[in-house]
């Protein structure tokens, strides 16, 4: 009775524990089958306790009903165990495709077994006996074997995952179920039909193969140690005791397995949290590094652009580029090579290594086939690691070691390659695609610097030519005329002196003096104009102010320069140049033609325009007559070429006002312009 009680207690405990675990998560295949395990445990426990009541001598009126209820509970619990076992096995690793034929193969023995079992019910014995026997054979035995196999497979899976504690408990549960398969599913009450007639715990064997005769003589062919009678004789423990042991083992291992799995899962969860935190920290650090890298590159590119805009020496700019690229890309060597004038030889222009940045002179020809190939094909090249060693020779000029990796990008001017920029490392650390992209950026800066240098040189040549022309024109119109006039006057003076006309002589001499003063003023003004230039060190307003003040000193006129603009004057560089030229031209006109004593220059801002007003108190002129003036027309064209406007207002004897208006730069253009200038 106690055995039945403890067996029921074990199974009920199993059912209760499984029920309580239902709401827990997890990916253990056992989880999904917990409802069936819980139902199995509770029904099996109930069947055992019914056994306990029957063994304790239940009233005769209840005994029959209890026996039927017990048989029903046993069949139900067996069915639930079979479902649990099938489920736990089915949820594991998918079986091979051919296994779908297994049901087709098993259908025949299953059909015969069920039919055979159904025929055994046609006996005078109580129906509980065949129910007990066949529920054990058809439900408990396969259910326990499936569950045991499922747990053993789970043991294998958990063992491979490294969860040794869970794996051991799964193995224990598997073995416990297999033990239960034997003691619960295979050892049945005696019956006059096989296989119950051969192996039962009533120690009765009959030969059902030839007849339905019962025999008290043991004729079992099983191994002696496995024979129930032998087990009973040796241990003195009945089958109910072994069933209790199996129930206890199953309950212990399954419940412990669930608990340990929870603990393991929590441990795993915590480990995942730590990993996630570490990954987040690493991602954060990576973001910082990426940001710093981007900032470094931005600073480098801005610095290079500034140098280009400041019209620094191109060679200095190129050295700066290769130096910065080497530092930012972590290369051991960076080289810049340009085709010679005949486009026949690729010559190293400059390079940078860990110690120095050098302009190469006299030029050294590049012989590396990869670099030459990039220039000829105009396609970048990134070493993959499978290049022949000779392909990486003559890449670095200074390193003792041969290069182990390199990246080469072409320098293209209007789609035509004219050189190459390459970087190399001696250590076995290959360059990434990103490195190659950054190198391309640097190559673009090289091209811009070279292009800018060429254009500056061309502009300087043009400016010199233009200035020479202007000086020649001024000398022809001014100084040469004066000198010619003076020559004629000298001849006149010579004639007057010979004729003794001293009064006329004195008058002509005075005229000559005035002509020389005019020529002197012209020359001084030209010198002033030549000296007035715009530069980064001097703002437009200060340049204009200085020029205007100098003009006043030279001419002796009363000058007033007023700047009403707060802050910087945001004009394009072209507009600034034209503004200065217009002022010079206007002041020249005032000096030569206006006979003014006061000149005022006002710089102001109206709406989005910068306005320069030049007014004098001279003799003025008639407007329609001035339309054909070459000087005014030139000033108007200068204003219009920079997107500005030019207006002249003059009334005879009331002076002249010139208004010149240029649009300010818009904020976004201003930033680009500033960047370009800087």
């Amino acid at each position: 009775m106690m055995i039945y009680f403890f067996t029921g207690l074990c199974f009920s405990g199993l059912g209760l524990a499984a029920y309580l675990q239902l709401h827990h998560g997890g990916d253990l295949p056992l989880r999904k089958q917990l409802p069936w395990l819980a139902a199995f445990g509770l029904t099996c426990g109930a069947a055992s306790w019914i056994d306990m009541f029957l063994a304790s001598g239940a009233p005769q009126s209840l005994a029959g009903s209890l026996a039927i209820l017990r048989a029903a509970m046993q069949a139900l619990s067996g069915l639930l165990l079979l479902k649990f076992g099938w489920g736990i096995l089915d949820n594991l690793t998918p079986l091979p495709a051919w296994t779908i034929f297994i049901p087709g193969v098993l259908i025949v023995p299953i059909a015969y077994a069920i039919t055979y079992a159904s025929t055994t019910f046609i006996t005078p014995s109580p129906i509980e006996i065949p129910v007990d026997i066949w529920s054990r054979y058809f439900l408990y035995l396969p259910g326990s074997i499936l569950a045991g196999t499922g747990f053993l497979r789970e043991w294998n899976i958990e063992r491979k995952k490294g969860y040794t504690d869970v794996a051991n408990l799964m193995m224990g549960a598997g073995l416990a179920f297999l033990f239960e398969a034997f003691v619960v599913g295979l050892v049945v009450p005696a019956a006059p039909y096989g296989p119950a007639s051969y192996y039962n715990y009533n120690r009765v064997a009959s030969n059902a193969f030839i007849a339905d005769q019962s025999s008290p003589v043991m004729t079992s062919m099983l191994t002696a140690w496995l024979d129930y009678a032998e087990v009973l004789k040796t241990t003195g423990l009945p089958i109910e005791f072994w069933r209790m042991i199996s129930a206890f083992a199953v309950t212990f291992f399954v419940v412990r397995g669930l608990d340990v799995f929870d603990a393991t899962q929590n441990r795993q969860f915590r480990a995942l949290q730590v990993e996630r935190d570490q990954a987040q920290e690493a991602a954060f650090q990576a973001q910082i590094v990426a940001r710093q890298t981007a900032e470094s590159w931005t600073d480098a590119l801005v610095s290079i652009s500034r140098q280009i805009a400041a019209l620094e020496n191109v060679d200095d700019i190129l050295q700066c580029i290769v130096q910065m690229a080497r530092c930012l890309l972590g290369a051991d060597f960076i080289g810049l090579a340009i085709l010679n004038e005949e486009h026949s030889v690729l010559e190293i222009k400059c390079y940078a290594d860990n110690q120095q940045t050098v302009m190469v002179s006299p030029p050294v020809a590049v012989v590396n086939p990869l670099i030459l190939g990039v220039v000829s094909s105009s396609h970048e090249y990134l070493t993959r690691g499978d290049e022949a060693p000779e392909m990486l020779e003559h890449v670095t000029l200074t390193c003792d070691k041969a290069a182990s990796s390199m990246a080469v990008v072409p320098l293209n001017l209007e789609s035509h390659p004219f050189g190459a920029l390459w970087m190399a490392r001696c250590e076995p650390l290959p360059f990434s695609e990103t490195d190659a992209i950054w190198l391309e950026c640097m190559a673009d800066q090289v091209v811009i610097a070279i292009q800018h240098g060429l254009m500056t040189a061309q502009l300087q040549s043009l400016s010199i030519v233009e200035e020479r022309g202007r000086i020649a024109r001024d000398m022809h119109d001014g100084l040469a005329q004066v000198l010619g006039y003076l020559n004629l006057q000298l001849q006149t003076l010579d004639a007057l002196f010979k004729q003794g006309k001293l009064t006329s002589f004195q008058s002509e001499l005075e005229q000559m003096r005035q002509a020389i003063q005019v020529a002197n003023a012209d020359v001084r003004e030209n010198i002033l104009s030549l000296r007035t230039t715009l530069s980064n060190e001097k703002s437009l307003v200060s340049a204009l102010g200085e020029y205007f003040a100098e003009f006043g000193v030279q001419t002796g006129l009363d000058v007033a320069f007023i700047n009403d603009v707060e802050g910087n004057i945001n004009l394009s560089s072209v507009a600034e140049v034209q503004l200065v030229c217009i002022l010079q031209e206007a002041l020249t006109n005032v000096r030569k033609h206006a006979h003014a004593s006061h000149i005022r220059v006002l710089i102001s801002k109206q709406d989005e325009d910068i306005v320069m007003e030049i007014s004098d108190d001279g003799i003025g002129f008639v407007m329609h007559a001035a339309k054909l003036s070459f000087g005014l027309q030139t000033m108007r064209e200068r204003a219009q070429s920079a997107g500005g406007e030019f207006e002249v207002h003059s009334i005879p004897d009331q002076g002249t006002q010139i208004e010149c208006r240029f649009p300010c730069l818009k904020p976004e253009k201003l930033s680009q312009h500033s960047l370009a200038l800087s």
Partner: protein
Amino acid sequence: MNLREWALPVYTVLMQMAIGGFAALWILRAAVKVRLERAELDRLIQNPLIILFTTVVVAMIGSHFHLSRPYLSFLAILNFRSSWLSREIVFTVLTFSVIASLSLLQVTHRGREPFLSALGWVGIALGSAAIYCMSRIYLLPTQVSWNTPITVYTFYSTAVLLGSMAMAAILVINQKFLEIHKVGDATVRAGVVRQALCWLAGIAFGMLWVVVALNVFMVLSLRSAGGIAQISLELLLGLYQPLWILRLLVLLVGVGWLVETVVTNVWKRTTSRDLTMPVYIACLLVMIGEILGRFLFYATHVKMGI
């Protein structure tokens, strides 16, 4: 009935199921061979043929268990002229040979189409002869409950009913197997299997009522025969009545389940669930019903005289 006697239901039912299934398979092959390429046709029948071959082997091995000296079983063919048992053995062996040959040719992809086709029809004829000889063994004057044409019809009805059900299950499982392996044109093959399932379900449904009718005729025949036959009738409707009712019930449920599955999933296509399990269970139920029927056939006979 002791365990040794169970060898007879094993042999007769399995053999009849194999022959019925083979006939169904070959008729299906003949019906669809114009629609399918040779390779697709081979894929459709190869696995079912191997399963039928295995069934015949199991049946023949099982038959030996009711012999006292199985190793001398081949001597039974010596009485071919006078014994239905000898004829049964000869035709069974010939049927086995044909199915084995066809399986071998199918696996090795040999044999021309006309030859294979003709060989299959010969196999069906030999199988039919084997079933006839099998049934004639029981037409003995001393065995009143057996000695009736109903026995012959019953054996043939088992072949047709079980053969249809078994072939339905085998075709569904084979289709699933080929789908998993992604072999051949699954769409065309699925169409053929769906059509075959409709026909097989229809045949099974028709045969169900034939079996019910044969059972009714058997009861009426025993009742009218009187004498020893009356004892058989009392056994059938007395001691074995639960099994007799159970047999008819599982047959009804099994065939009904197949028909319901085919109608809802194949014909009307109102659902698209996996057909394997319902068809498998339906086949299992019908097989249990037929084996129960064969058990009752042996259990209710009463020998007249000594």
